[in-house]
């Protein structure tokens, strides 16, 4: 299976963050059109070259190149020790990563679908996220868990979920969530370089998105959002597939004379409160857009925080756009009912704009 929807609209976010200290860019980066999948593949390739302690692990990632082709051709280049196929054992895959990371390896796991993270939830939450803290800093867990998330392709209830909400209340874990090929590369390289455990979310509807991707060792600092589009009246905070949707909705809002700023979070935990709050203060009207169910989702956290810190500057309440509070049905028209779309964001932008006149 492959992701159905391609998203050509994903404008590459300005990546202001510097390359990581140990990795100065070799030469002025030259950009070219690359798919999200290729960007990830290229990042893995570069990192495998740089870090001898890195290895890839997961189901069908070697010869087959992964269910979405992200690890394609890496077996041929790096061999079966470092590009390691596993049985269908998600707990053991992540456990292996934690153990290896504790002794200084830099494993990158692929969990085929994010929906399967329930199988290794304990390993992520009680092990990866805690070994650094509970053992008083004596261990680190520099591992990355890449996984394909999100709906919109008729995948049904166990192949379509947005899972960041499962982990938002878990201290110690980092969640990266790129919206375009350049960030996919930059965040993946930063995640691999990071000594914190990173859950790396790849929205399936973005795999075929194309954009300009800087060549060479291009990193996007974890925990830093990007202003994907500047605007003065309304702020939309989004991530992953919601970013191209927000950009389209923002373009539509131009016609109504509403100037919309779009913040691409890029890392959803820990998120970049500074950038989000600065924009909220500037516009006084905020929309937070997420694909996951509303209740207890990322939108709740962002909304709470924005109100907490910018209450006096807000012209009206933060407006949440989310999936409905349901599992994800198989049938495509039903799925469309429950997932948020461009129109929902556009409507929210208008509502936030009007909400100014409370």
């Amino acid at each position: 299976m492959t992701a159905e929807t391609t998203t050509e609209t994903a404008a590459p976010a300005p990546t202001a963050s510097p390359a990581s200290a140990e990795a100065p860019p070799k030469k002025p980066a030259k950009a070219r059109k690359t798919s999200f999948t290729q960007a990830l593949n290229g990042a893995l390739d570069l990192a495998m070259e740089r870090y001898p302690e890195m290895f890839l692990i997961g189901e069908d990632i070697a010869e087959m190149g992964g269910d979405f082709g992200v690890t394609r051709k890496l077996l041929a280049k790096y061999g079966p020790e470092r590009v390691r196929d596993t049985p269908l054992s998600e707990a053991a895959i992540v456990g292996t990563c934690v153990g290896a990371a504790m002794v200084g390896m830099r494993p990158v796991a692929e969990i085929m679908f994010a929906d399967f993270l329930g199988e290794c939830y304990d390993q992520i939450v009680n092990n990866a996220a805690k070994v650094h803290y509970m053992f008083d800093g004596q261990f680190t867990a520099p591992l990355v868990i890449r996984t394909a998330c999100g709906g919109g392709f008729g995948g049904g209830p166990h192949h379509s979920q947005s899972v960041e909400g499962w982990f938002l209340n878990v201290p110690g874990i980092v969640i990266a969530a790129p919206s375009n090929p350049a960030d996919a590369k930059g965040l993946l390289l930063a995640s691999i370089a990071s000594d914190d455990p990173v859950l790396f979310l790849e929205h399936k509807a973005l795999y075929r998105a194309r954009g300009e991707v800087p060549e060479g060792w291009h990193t996007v600092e974890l925990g830093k959002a990007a202003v994907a589009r500047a605007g003065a009246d309304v702020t939309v905070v989004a991530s992953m597939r919601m970013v191209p949707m927000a950009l389209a909705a923002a373009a539509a809002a131009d016609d109504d004379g509403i100037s919309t700023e779009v913040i691409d979070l890029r890392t959803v935990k820990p998120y970049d409160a500074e950038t989000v709050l600065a924009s909220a203060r500037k516009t006084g009207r905020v929309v937070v857009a997420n694909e996951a169910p509303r209740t207890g989702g990322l939108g709740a956290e962002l909304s709470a925080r924005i109100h907490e810190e910018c209450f006096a500057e807000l012209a009206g309440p933060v407006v949440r756009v989310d999936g409905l509070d349901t599992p994800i049905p198989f049938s495509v028209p039903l799925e469309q009912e429950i997932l948020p779309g461009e129109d929902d964001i556009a409507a929210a932008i208008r509502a936030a704009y009007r909400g100014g006149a409370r």
Partner: protein
Amino acid sequence: MDTPTLRGLYRDMWLIRAFEQGLEREFEQGNVPGMLHTGLGQEAVQAALAAHLEADDAFFPDHRCHGINALAQQRHAGDGERIMAELFGKATGVCSGKGGSLHSADPAVGNFGDNAVEGSYMATVLGVALAAKMRGEPKVACAIIGDGTVGRGEFHESLNMAAIWDLPVLYACVNNGYAISMPVGEGHASANIVDMARGYGFGCEQLDGNDVVEAHERVGAAVAHIRAGNGPRFLELKTWRWQGVFAGEFRPEAEVKYWREEHDPILMAADELQARGVSGDELEGIEAEMRELIEGWIDFAKASPAPDPAKATADVYVGWEVARR
């Protein structure tokens, strides 16, 4: 096995093959959403299981079980076309299109639905079996699990608990040699799954899952054993799936040739039937009849309406409504 029984199984196998081939065609034409895993090549396993599972039993199908789902639906409720409609995501599907290929269920025919987090139902099946045991019902709870799915930790938890509680569980392990691209002997300590199952102290058996006569007989014996209250059984049914991975065929040519030409369950059954004097014409007639039946099901699925949009928010909870947009 008498000839009428074998003829019936032959028919069932053709129903499955026609179903999967029709579905494959429709999928390629873009009429079926989502993902597609077919049971082509594994018809004997499914027909043998379907032959012994009653509507009051419970089976947890795996992701290649459209065939057994359709047989159960057809035999026990007379509306196999609702399995097809489910795969098209239509209102007439067994789950009104909410489940699809990986979550088609109908408890009225004993179909408890796949869990697309493969293998989670190795745990669920325990509860169904336990309930039957507590109620004194002579029921069989069957988990159909691929060789790859056996990698999951629930394999151990499930077999262990079925053993200590002596539950009426049939583990039907469909060993088709691969988990997506991983050969069974590379993914597991042993290429013979029974080796890992034997430690739990109940009967384990390995058999040729493409020989419908053998499969029917051994499944029958296991089901009878379980139904009589004698505890769990583990069957490893060796078979092979036509479907490779989406990159195409990756398996050795000789292997492909063996399974598709020399050890195909339908061809094997046809040989046996002909040896017993059933005519080639009659066999062709069965195939044609099944293909026609399935085309009717496909037409039904296509002509069926999309689900009522209200279904999208229905049945999240029993006790609460969920807000619509």
